[in-house]
């Protein structure tokens, strides 16, 4: 007898063995499928939530890569400024890795109408550079967005209500100018927007950059350079290039801007792995049990095969192949079920009844699962890897039965 059993024979025997006790195998495959499907689904939802939180965090001031003067992020004041890009930086920004970029100012301010006073945040941007593309997450419901030379402001519908004012009326903006003095200007409300998050609708006011620069006596200066890269792959290269060019600034990717979110993103893979492993260990007892039973009821038969000259290695191979087929069927069904559920929910799940809770963690009340192939591979690899590891001991034991004893076992 040759020392090698053809793969075809091993697979055929494993397949037939698997279906000798159909119910048992189906239950095991079902348990595997449910666990895998649930894990994949949950991971996609967790990723979706985190992704959404990152997006919401950026909604007011979007940008794949953002340059701030160092110190600004801890203390967002007009004392921290950047000159408008020039020289090497301008060359990078106009280079192939950048789709578009712009400069902005964002400062805290007091907003006063004839009736009320509120705290808020003024965002000055250049409509000619990013109008209609950067802030498309907020929807203008009345009036119009500013032009570069507009003196007016666009405020949220919620703030409009709070201030008890209306479109076309004037409000007073008070902030601190670059000399440290109090600057205030009157500005006409030229537009009203709605945002997904009420908190930003109450706080954020958009206006043209030149008007804000004038108010703050800070011509040509900005506080943020927002860069939209030509693609996700260009982002890291671009970041490094800018760090080398502008040493004394904070250059951060969108996923690094919020320390809480970046910490969450960093620990996400670890959390996912722990979840899958815990789930698998619970599953493993059932799997090992099934295998032990399968071997136990075939002791005589294994004895006979050994007596007929099959090597222990062959027995082990057949049992491992059986486990393998069981695992693969389980994860295939699990993947299919998770895929179907995620496809069904691809437009997002409406959770507006929990809107305030989601707002508290900084997410919109609609959750869109985010599927990553990496998570699929990780989940499947862990299940197959640990599953085969669990079957090694039973397979090894089965392979090392003494043929005589096994044959006469009752």
């Amino acid at each position: 007898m040759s020392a090698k059993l053809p793969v075809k024979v091993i697979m055929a025997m494993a397949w037939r063995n698997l279906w000798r006790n159909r119910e048992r195998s189906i239950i095991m495959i079902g348990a595997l499928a449910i666990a895998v499907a649930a894990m994949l689904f949950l991971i996609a939802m967790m990723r979706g939530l985190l992704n959404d939180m990152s997006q919401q965090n950026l909604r007011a001031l979007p940008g794949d890569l953002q340059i701030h003067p160092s110190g600004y992020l801890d203390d967002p004041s007009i004392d921290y400024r950047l000159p408008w890009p020039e020289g090497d930086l301008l060359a990078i920004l106009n280079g192939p890795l950048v789709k578009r970029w712009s400069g902005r100012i964002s400062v805290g301010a007091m907003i006063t109408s004839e009736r009320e006073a509120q705290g808020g945040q003024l965002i000055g941007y250049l409509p000619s550079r990013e109008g209609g593309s950067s802030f498309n997450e907020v929807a203008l419901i009345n009036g119009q967005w500013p032009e570069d030379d507009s003196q007016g402001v666009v405020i949220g519908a919620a703030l409009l209500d709070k201030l008890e004012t209306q479109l076309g009326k004037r409000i007073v903006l008070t902030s601190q100018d670059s000399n440290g003095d109090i600057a205030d200007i009157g500005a006409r409300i030229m537009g009203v927007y709605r945002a997904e998050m009420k908190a930003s609708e109450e706080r954020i006011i958009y206006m043209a950059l030149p008007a804000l620069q004038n108010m703050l006596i800070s011509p040509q200066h900005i506080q943020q350079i927002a860069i939209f890269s030509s693609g996700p792959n260009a982002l890291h290269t671009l970041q490094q290039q800018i760090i080398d060019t502008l040493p004394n600034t904070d250059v951060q990717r969108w996923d690094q801007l919020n320390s809480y979110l970046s910490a969450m993103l960093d620990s996400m893979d670890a959390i996912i792995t722990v979840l899958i492993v815990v789930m698998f260990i619970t599953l493993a007892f059932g799997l090992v049990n099934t295998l032990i039973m399968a071997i136990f009821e075939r002791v005589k038969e294994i004895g006979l095969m050994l007596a007929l000259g099959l090597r222990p290695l062959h027995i082990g191979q057949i049992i491992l192949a059986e486990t393998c087929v069981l695992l693969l069927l389980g994860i295939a069904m699990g993947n299919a079920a998770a895929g179907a559920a995620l496809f069904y929910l691809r437009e997002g799940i409406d959770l507006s009844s929990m809107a305030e809770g989601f707002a508290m963690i900084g997410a919109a009340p609609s959750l869109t699962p985010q599927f990553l192939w990496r998570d699929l591979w990780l989940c499947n690899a862990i299940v197959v890897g640990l599953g085969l590891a669990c079957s090694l001991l039973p397979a090894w034991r089965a392979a090392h039965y003494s043929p005589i004893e096994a044959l006469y076992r009752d």
Partner: protein
Amino acid sequence: MPLILSLAWRNLWRHQRRTWLTIAAMALCNCILIFMISLQAGSYITMLNNNLAVFSGHLQVQHSRYLDDPKPRFSVDNGIELAAELRKLPTVAAAAARGVNFALLSSTTRSKAMQVVGVEAQFEDSVSTIPGTLVAGQYLSEKTPYGLVIGRRSASHLKVDIGSEITLLGSGQNGAFAASILTVVGIVDSGLEELDRSTVFIQLTDFQDIFSYQRQVSHIAIRSPSLFMVNQTQDAVVRATQNNSSLNTLDWDTLVPGLKQAILSDIASALFIYTVLIIVVIFSVLNNQLMAVLERRKEYGILLSLGVAHRRLIGLLFAETALLALLGLALGLLVGSLINGYFATHGVYFAGMEQMAEKFNLPSRIHPMMHPITTLAGPLLVFVGSLLAAAYPALKLNNLHPVTARHGL
């Protein structure tokens, strides 16, 4: 021991290894459930207590329109006197009146729009933890007229220190002009970044003077003796204020609706994981009992031929499953409680979760809550689920015919 139990017990140990594996699966699942549920409950309670204790309190008495429309004109008349009355109620642990408004605060170099809160200096520490987080100077008192207490982050933003003067500009009641010069007397670090960046505290009487509130306040914050007694406290406060129809008594769930929803959404995702875990374990039990029935077909055939009724055999099967599940329950409870007990005293430390802790004002160590419900809820579900899992093998057993079963069919 009744016959059925001793038979079930012996049946259980016919396949020792198989039984132990299934028990181990159940015990492990129970341990995970006990630990996770207790940890969650512990962190929710801590989160609620910490967040409500910082500022909002368990309850607030407000003008009935203030919640939806927080404007100065929707204020509580004679708030200081009302707070004093409420403080006397037996189910009210503490009460303090506050005024809330916005103003632009300027130091010599910086300006910032902030929320200004007027507090009853001698009572504020009974409803809020902020006075206790003083890092420099002193808290407000009679001895500090026109004094101001500011958060650490805002102090560094405005570049002020103890003794610095801050100019306040804003608008008060009925659009009146509000202006004042205040002296920084204390710097606090509340632990909630957002609050620390946005809020300053002055004495309520100064607040009423600056913002032309006369004898009005914005709300009265109330602390209940415990989170679980808020309803009783609310009833008492509602009764005490019922002759003033313009007032509303709101509980924390209404005041900070995000908190409960954030907890509920976290519970929902956790429940999903628990359900899957329990299903997986139930499948193990199902497989175990199905094997037991299938391999005993001949024996069942003989018993049936001898006149034993199907229902007796099914009873035996359920007794066996119950013993199996009970062992899993007992072992899980024992180990799970030991693990829980250890962490309840030592706390669970989440490495790299400081940001999360800060965001939700949690300590960096969380102590699981030891309570019969948090300990028993998961394991009992596993127990019931396991018994249900025996239904399918029982159905198989019910369909056995004495003659064919004897031949193993």
